[in-house]
């Protein structure tokens, strides 16, 4: 063990190295690591936030899906009800129309019958008059008995 000026030289070297480390080595490493730690922490909290948002969004979508389903079901029910109503309306309208047509047809038939009866009566009257004429050709004066004939025709 021989102490000499080496000790002083080494102490100076040590001082230089400490200064170098404290000034140029430690700060950039510390800054890099702390920045990265911050980035990671931010990323983690962002991920957590994203997870919560996703949770909320999926809950919301489930809710709106259920709501939509309910609305659709209500709409279908309303539509079915409306369809039933329309069918019912159409049925009753058809019934009314049918009755009207039947009524009209019945009137027509009655008219026809009336007319036919009228025609028939006329024909019968003519035939009767014709028959009577044939029987009474000579004795009957058409002019004299025309009043009688007309009365007869009316009675028939």
């Amino acid at each position, binding site marked *: 063990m021989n102490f000499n000026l080496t000790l002083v030289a080494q102490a100076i070297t*040590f001082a230089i190295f400490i200064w170098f480390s404290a000034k140029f080595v*430690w700060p950039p490493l510390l800054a890099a690591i702390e920045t990265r730690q911050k980035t990671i922490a931010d990323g983690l909290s962002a991920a957590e936030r994203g997870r919560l948002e996703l949770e909320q969004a999926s809950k919301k979508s489930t809710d709106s899906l259920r709501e939509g389903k309910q609305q659709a079901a209500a709409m279908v029910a309303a539509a079915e009800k409306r369809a039933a109503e329309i069918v019912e309306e159409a049925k009753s309208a058809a019934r009314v129309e049918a009755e009207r047509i039947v009524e009209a047809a019945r009137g027509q038939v009655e008219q026809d019958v009336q007319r036919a009866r009228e025609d028939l009566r006329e024909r019968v009257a003519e035939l009767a008059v014709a028959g009577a004429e044939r029987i009474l050709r000579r004795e009957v004066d058409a002019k004299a008995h025309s009043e009688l004939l007309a009365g007869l025709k009316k009675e028939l």
Partner: protein
Amino acid sequence: MSTEHAPSNATEYIQHHLTFNAYPVGDGMVHVDSVITAFVIGALALGFIWWVARGATTGVPGKRQAFVELMFEFVDDTVKGIFPHGDRHSFMAPIALTVFVWVLMMNALDFIPADAAAKVTGLFSDEWRLVPTADVNTTFALALAVWFLMIFYGIKVKGIGGWIHEIFCAPFGGHPLLWPANLLFNIVEYVSKPLSHSLRLYGNMYAGEIIFLLLWVWAATGVAGTVAGAILGAGWAIFHILIVVLQAYIFMTLTVVYLAMAHEGH
């Protein structure tokens, strides 16, 4: 080993390898080998870290940066555990990193076989001891620097009055009759701290060097000696990894502990 004059016996061989390259400066001497080796290896190691730190990305680090950050975190965690007195990033952590990296690298030079290293250092000088921490001047330089910092921080934190008060009134108490006992105790403490701090590292590294040299002496005694020297040399080198890293770690930890103690009042 020198090619100019091969040592004739074991004593001369070991003495040759334990001789510093001393250069007279003024009235004293300077061990050129210790100073230059220590500076070069420290500059290389810290320069490497500086180079990585300068290009450090805040994103995903590469393997090189990850390695440096691993070391950074290790030192930072150690300092964080020992030094809870304010901002450690301005001084305490950088000095711990410096001590750890520098001492580790200086110690690790012990792994280079002395005669192999001499092939390179022999270009500069015949006498060149490769392990600066096996030079008591180096370890004392570091320990005394820490010692002065310890006193500096003691005075800075407690004030000159508080520091002197502590020397006379701690650890036994403030009674005037206890002043001499306190003073004696503190003197012992202030003397033993740098002594144990520096001699622990010096002793370990010096012993490691001596054992290597003894094994190399054995290796020069024939085939059996070469085989035995090689096997035991490998074994000692592997065990020495533990010592090299452990001593660097202890030196760093004690540096931080002493400086942290200087911040604590009694």
